[in-house]
C-alpha cells in the first residue's frame, strides 16, 4: 500500500534523524522543551508534505530548513506575546481579557503577523496602521514620511501579497 509505504519512509526518517534534529534545535534554542516541541512539529510538517531524499545529507538539510523556519516562527510568536503582555500590564486589572480571550487574540496576531511578515517594512506598517488603527491615508503618509499617493501603492502591494498567499501562489511565512 502506498500510504503504508509512506508511513514506513517517515518512520525511518524519524528514527534516523530525530535525535540529530532535537540536538540541533536545542543548540539553537537553549531550551529542551522547546526543542522537543519543534522537532516534533518539523516531522509533522514532513508528514503533511512528504518528500523523498536520496541521502542522509539531503534529509538533514531539508529538516534543518524546516526547523530554522520553526525557530523564527517561535521567536516571533514569543516577541509578539511579550509585547502583548507588556501592553496588557499597562492596563488596569479590570480591563484584562480572560485567558481564553487572550489566547484567541494572540493566535489572531500570529496569523496576521505571518501574513504580513515578508512585506517591506513601510508597506507592512502602512497596511497595519490602516487596517488595525483605521488611520486615514494622509495620516499614515505623515507618520511614515511618504506621499499619500505612495500609501495607496503600499496598500495595493500589501493586499496583493495577502491575496497571493491566500490563493496559494506564495509560500506562507514560517512554513
Amino acid at each position, binding site marked *: 500500500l502506498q500510504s503504508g509505504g509512506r508511513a514506513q519512509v517517515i518512520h525511518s526518517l524519524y528514527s534516523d534523524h530525530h535525535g540529530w534534529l532535537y540536538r540541533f534545535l536545542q543548540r539553537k534554542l537553549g531550551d529542551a522543551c522547546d526543542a522537543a516541541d519543534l522537532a516534533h512539529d518539523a516531522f509533522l510538517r514532513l508528514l503533511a508534505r512528504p518528500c523523498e531524499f536520496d541521502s542522509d545529507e539531503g534529509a538533514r538539510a531539508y529538516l534543518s530548513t524546516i526547523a530554522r523556519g520553526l525557530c523564527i516562527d517561535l521567536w516571533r510568536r514569543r516577541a*509578539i506575546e511579550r*509585547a502583548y503582555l507588556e*501592553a496588557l500590564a*499597562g492596563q488596569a486589572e479590570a480591563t484584562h481579557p480572560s485567558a481564553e480571550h487572550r489566547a484567541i487574540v494572540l493566535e489572531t496576531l500570529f496569523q496576521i503577523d505571518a501574513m504580513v511578515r515578508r512585506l517591506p517594512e513601510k508597506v507592512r506598517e502602512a497596511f497595519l496602521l490602516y487596517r488595525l*488603527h483605521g*488611520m486615514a491615508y494622509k495620516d499614515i503618509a505623515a507618520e511614515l514620511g511618504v506621499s499619500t499617493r505612495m500609501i495607496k501603492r503600499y496598500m495595493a502591494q500589501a493586499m496583493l501579497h495577502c491575496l*497571493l498567499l491566500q490563493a496559494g501562489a506564495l509560500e506562507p511565512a514560517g512554513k
Partner: protein
Amino acid sequence: MSASDLSQPGAHAPGFESLQQAAEWFAVLGSEDATDADRQRWQAWLDERRENRDAWRYVENVGLQFDTLQPDADDPAVKRALRAANRVTSRRKTLGILAAIGGAGLLGWGAAERAGLRRMALAWAADYRTGVGEIRDFVLPDGTRIWLNTASALDEDFGPTLRLVNLVQGEVLIETAKDAARSFAVDTPHGRLTALGTRFVVRRFDGHASLAVYEGRVEIRTAESGRSLIVESGEQATFTAAEIGSPQPATRAGQAWSRGMLVADNIPLRQLIGELSRYRPGHLGCAPEVAELSVMGTYSLADTDRVLALLEDALPVRIRKTLPWWTTVVAKD
C-alpha cells in the same frame, strides 16, 4: 451567507490579473478620498466577471483575519494601549502596533467602514442582489415575491415564528405571501418594518430609510428609540433609528421601477438625474443652471442612454460625456 462560506473561496481560483485588480480596488476604496464614482466603477468591475467577484472574496477573507480583533475604538483601554505602542522602539514598531491592538483586543474596520467597504462586501455576498442598472424579481421560499431595484441586496433569514429579511443595500418592493403562523418583517439599520398587509417598498439611504405602503399596512419600529408607527396603504414615511417622519401620500413613481419604469411627475431635473444615476455605473450629474427645470414623463430604466437622449430632445439641455463613466447634463449652448 455565513462567514464560513466567505472563508471558502469558490472553486474557481481567480487569476493573477483579477487578484491584482482586486488589490488595486482595495487601495482605491480604502482612501478617504474615494468618491461615489470610484465605488460605482468598482461595482461595475465586480459585475463584469465572476472571476472578479471571486478575487474580491479573497480581499474579504483577508479582512476576516483582522475581524477577530473586535471593533470598539472608544474603549479607554485602546487609547492607553495605543500610547504604549508609541513608546516602543522603531525596530519593534510593527510588533508594538500589533500588540497595542491585541492588548485592547479591540478596534476593527475603522477606515474600511468609512469607505463603506464592509457594507459593499456584505451586499455582494447577500442572498439576493442586483447590479447597477439591474432590476430583478425573486420568489422567496414562502411564496413572497420581491423586486430588487438597482444595486440592491437582501438577506433572507426565515425562522419558525418570523419571516425576517434584511435589506443590506438599496431598495425592495415586497408582496408578501399569506402565512398565519409567521409574520413577515424587514430589518434595516434604522428600524424594523412588520408587514400587516401585503405590498410595500423599503429603501435604504445613508442616514435613514423610507417606507411606502401600496396595499395593507406596515408597522415601523425604530432601531434605537423603539418608536412605532403604523403606515397605512397609500402613505409613505421616512425614518431614522430615532425618529419617524409624518406620513405623506405615496407617489405612484415609488413602485414604477418594479416594472422597469421611471415616472417623473413634475419633478426637478436634478431629482430625475439623481434617480437615473442609480441605474448607471459611473458618475451622472447635472449642472446647477439646469437643475430646476421641470420634467414630466415616463421613461424606461432599461436604457438610460436613451432616457438622456430623450431629455436632450425635450429640454434645453445637452449631454456631456467627459469620460466613458463621467456624464453631466448641462445647458444647451
